[in-house]
């Protein structure tokens, strides 16, 4: 069978599976819709969290990003895993003990204030919408790349192929997020994790065997290549010769690396769609264990990606650099057709020169190639290519669904049920949750089809805002009995405001804009979340010392969430 038939078959089977699971696990109550009934095993929740967490960017783009930045890429590896330690040790068990459905619910109750609740809802909506727009776009891009002939043959509202891909993605997400709620999403995410991790590992293992003769990429990463030198030494040597910085050293300043890593870690621990996953397990001890499983599952991909990155760079240097244009391997010409690899023989010597000097460089490569072209480079059978397509879609859809749930819950529970209409019936609230999910899917789809110019800057924004708003408010809510509503609210607003200002200034050119030379302390916008977080802590501390202590029952509440006994099920009241 050819590549296209395999892709149709595998993507078709996985989609049927997701929709089947959604119908089987239809949510019948708000509790099932919000937290999957609170009865998910820690292992299943670990897998679901891993799928929720690993987006299209982790699956398709991260290895390529590391490939072209070498050591500097470590910020993503440490930043997007280290946050789980903070979650497991500082937040998840206590928030699970608290036992409500959402993150704004904790902030609203702990800080005995609907103002705090509203600030948290706004922050949750902001973070989730910025994040989900990128995911829907990712679904469209993956579809456009793999199912191009199918998409070209159908007509949907006169959209381009990426736009049609987004619409198909919306329909699938609609099915299992709107019907199944958290229950449907959880079981679908378990299936999606299996698909995506299998799809990522198969090519990586074969590539590792081919290049460094080791079936374990994590070990092959430090292995020897064909000419007997170590892979990483070889990369360092060739890249410095071409005028780039050494692969294992990178070029960013230490302070920038430090701040970006910290901001990504704090942001991870503050992202509502990740935190809410730990509300679905039965007990406090399960929340801890589940975070451990989640990180272990995430680490399978995150420790393989840097190996894939190095293999990819080695392959590219070996098979393209300084080779005759007419004698390039087949996979290069295949991908040249898609425009992801572009070669321009500037000095007309018939060879390809890769160089750091833009006037001499003749090779432009899209970073996604490092994952997408792997099956062909390793000469794997056609079904593996179909599998990689299904893996990319699983990664994008699972993350999108998790985010959509946070959006719909924030509206139906934290706004409607808790503030606008507390008398709403269970049935009415469930209906509101589904309606909000429908609205969110449509809005996210709109942003996927008409992406704002800032999709690339979204990561900085979502993580920066999550770290500067939620992380300190949650942490102080658990570890400080003296933290009051005045402190928490002003801290969140200060942290959120400053981070937003910095990112808008340096990423979007507002407030006078400015380039890297104008960065405060040399910290790029991606790393500014660390400062936003610190400002939040400082402002909250100072304000809380000048204003009245929280009432007695709050002190009892904090006492109550600090011990695991009597957690019971996640409840409404």
């Amino acid at each position, binding site marked *: 069978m050819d590549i296209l038939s395999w892709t149709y078959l595998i993507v078709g089977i996985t989609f049927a599976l997701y929709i089947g699971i959604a119908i089987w696990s239809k949510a019948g109550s708000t509790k099932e819709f919000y937290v999957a009934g609170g009865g998910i095993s820690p292992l299943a929740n670990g897998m679901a969290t891993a799928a929720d967490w690993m987006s299209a960017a982790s699956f398709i783009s991260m290895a390529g990003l*590391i490939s072209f930045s070498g*050591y500097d*890429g*470590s910020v993503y*590896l*440490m930043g997007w*895993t*280290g946050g*789980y*330690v903070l979650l*497991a*040790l*500082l937040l998840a*068990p206590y928030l699970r003990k608290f036992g409500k459905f959402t993150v704004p619910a904790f902030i609203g109750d702990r800080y005995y204030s609907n103002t705090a609740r509203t600030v948290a809802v706004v922050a949750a909506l902001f973070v989730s919408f910025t994040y989900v727009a990128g995911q829907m776009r990712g679904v469209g891009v993956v579809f456009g790349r793999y199912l191009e002939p199918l998409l070209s043959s159908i007509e949907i509202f006169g959209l381009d192929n990426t736009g049609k891909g987004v619409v198909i993605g919306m329909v699938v997400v609609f099915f299992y997020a709107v019907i199944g709620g958290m229950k449907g999403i959880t079981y679908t995410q378990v299936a999606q994790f299996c698909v995506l991790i299998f799809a990522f590992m198969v090519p990586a293992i074969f590539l590792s065997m081919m290049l460094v003769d080791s079936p374990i990429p*994590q070990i092959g*990463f*430090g*292995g*020897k290549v064909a000419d007997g030198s*170590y*892979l*990483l*030494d070889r990369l360092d040597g060739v890249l410095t010769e071409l005028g780039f910085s050494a692969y*294992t*050293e990178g070029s960013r300043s*230490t302070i920038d*690396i*430090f701040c970006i*890593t*910290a901001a990504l870690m704090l942001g991870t621990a503050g992202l509502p769609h990740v935190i809410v996953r730990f509300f679905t397990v039965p*007990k*406090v*001890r399960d929340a*801890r*264990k589940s*975070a*451990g499983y989640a*990180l*272990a599952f995430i*680490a399978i991909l*995150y*420790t393989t990606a*840097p190996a894939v990155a190095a293999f990819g760079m080695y392959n590219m240097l070996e098979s393209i650099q300084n080779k005759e244009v007419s004698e390039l391997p087949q996979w290069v010409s295949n991908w040249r057709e898609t425009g992801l690899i572009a070669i321009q023989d500037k000095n007309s010597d018939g060879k390809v020169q890769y160089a750091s000097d833009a006037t001499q460089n003749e090779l432009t490569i899209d970073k996604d190639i490092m994952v997408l072209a792997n099956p062909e480079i390793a000469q794997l059978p056609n079904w593996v290519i179909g599998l990689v397509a299904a893996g990319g879609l699983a990664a994008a859809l699972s993350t999108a669904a998790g985010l959509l749930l946070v959006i719909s819950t924030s509206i139906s529970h934290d706004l409607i049920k808790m503030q606008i209409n507390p008398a709403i019936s269970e049935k009415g609230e469930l209906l509101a949750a589904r309606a909000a999910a429908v609205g969110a899917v449509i809005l996210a789809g709109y942003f996927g089809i008409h992406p704002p110019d800032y999709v690339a800057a979204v990561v900085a924004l979502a993580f920066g805002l999550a770290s500067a708003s939620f992380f300190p408010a949650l942490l102080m809510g658990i570890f400080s009995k003296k933290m009051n509503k005045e402190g928490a609210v002003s801290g969140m607003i200060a942290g959120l405001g400053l981070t937003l200002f910095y990112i808008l200034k340096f990423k979007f050119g507002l407030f006078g804009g400015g380039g890297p030379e104008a960065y405060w302390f040399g910290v790029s916008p991606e790393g500014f979340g660390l400062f936003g977080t610190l400002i939040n802590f400082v402002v909250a501390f100072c304000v809380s010392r000048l204003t009245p202590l929280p009432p007695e029952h709050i002190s009892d509440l904090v*006492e109550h969430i*600090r*011990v*695991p*006994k*009597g*957690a019971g099920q996640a409840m409404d009241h």
Partner: protein
Amino acid sequence: MKDRTGYWKKNLRLLTILLSVWFIVSFGFGILFVDVLNTVRIGGFKLGFWFAQQGSIYVFIALIFIYVQRMNRLEKEYDLDE
């Protein structure tokens, strides 16, 4: 029932120790002292680079499971387990 303050104090001590390790392997070995560690080699890896792209992640997983196990024991001791 034993004193809950004791339980909380022990929890905080455990957290301090584990988070120090968390900080040292990632921000310490992987970032601040990466150049010093890079002078040491293990097979094909420079040690600092290995911590930044592999080692720190393995340590993170170990830290969570150590915390799980210690807390379960602590909760039994103070009769606070579910």
